[in-house]
């Protein structure tokens, strides 16, 4: 049986496993701590969710994840992903199963949270360049009547394309903006970690 807690564990572990990769990406255009920060964040989250019931509801779980990341990440990803998880937790309140429409609403709330916090928009070489295309792809998939897992597959594919797109653009937000044109050719670490999470969720649910 798939549970929210197990799904979250898989997603967090995927990020922890990519620690060096994410840090290498961030060393090229940022302050070089994205992988370390995210791994520390999810390790702290794991400790917090270990004490929760195995069948804990998704809202409580996501709230715990959000607060856990906020209190332990240390870099910009903490407030950004923390806000994203907190906002998503508000959308699924009272639900025991997540359909594609709810999943997209959660993703959209997360995107809105990231935008409120970071004041960024699409095309600025941030995590939004993976997440907004993912949401758009999900919307099309839902309208085409696809299953939940198929919708998520399309979202993952769009996010992966989004990561590739970040290689072609100049960073105007965050530490990478100091590099201006020199940021071209490098993929965005935040867009990458967002995609890692979506991929892990898809692999778990598939």
């Amino acid at each position: 049986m798939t549970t929210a807690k197990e799904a979250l564990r898989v997603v967090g572990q995927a990020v922890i496993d990519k620690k060096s990769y994410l840090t290498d990406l961030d060393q090229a255009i940022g302050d070089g701590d994205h992988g370390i920060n995210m791994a520390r964040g999810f390790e702290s989250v794991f400790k917090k969710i270990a004490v929760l019931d195995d069948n804990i509801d998704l809202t409580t779980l996501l709230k715990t994840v959000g607060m856990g990341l906020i209190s332990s990440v240390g870099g910009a990803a903490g407030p950004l992903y923390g806000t994203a998880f907190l906002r998503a937790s508000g959308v699924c309140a009272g639900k025991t199963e997540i359909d594609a429409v709810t999943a997209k609403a959660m993703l959209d709330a997360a995107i809105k949270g990231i935008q409120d916090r970071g004041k960024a928009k699409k095309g600025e070489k941030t995590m939004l360049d993976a997440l907004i295309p993912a949401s758009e792809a999900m919307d099309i998939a839902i309208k085409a009547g696809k299953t939940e897992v198929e919708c998520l597959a399309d979202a993952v594919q769009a996010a992966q394309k989004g990561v590739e797109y970040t290689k072609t653009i100049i960073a105007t937000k965050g530490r990478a903006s100091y590099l201006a044109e020199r940021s071209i050719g490098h993929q965005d670490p935040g867009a990458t970690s967002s995609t890692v999470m979506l991929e892990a969720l898809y692999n778990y649910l598939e």
Partner: protein
Amino acid sequence: MVGIVIVSHSVKIAEGVKELALQMARKDQLIIAAGGTDTGDIGSDPMKIQAAIEAADKGDGVAVFADLGSAVMSVGLAKEMIDPQLAQRVCLANAPIVEGAIAGAVEAAMGSPLEKVLETAYGARNMEKQ
């Protein structure tokens, strides 16, 4: 008296700005440094910032000074986590952290209201250096 909170990625910068500002302002001016992560590493910690804001408020509000990136974001998040009534009298100064905090602290120490403290801090943006 308006309280001052200094938020930097670096514990040392936050402490150093506090030290500089206190040298200029009255010694009893409330200035709280909230630099680095909870382990003292480079970064920012919304919980630490939240606690600093709560400790800095004596009813007249708090002017917060931050350096860059996640420090600014963490202040925004801390404001969302504190009591909404307190949040109304907490404002992130649109000013450089060193010059702004010194100008703001001097203004606060004179007993000026939050608006005036923020205005003076904002004015520190225009400090000519050439």
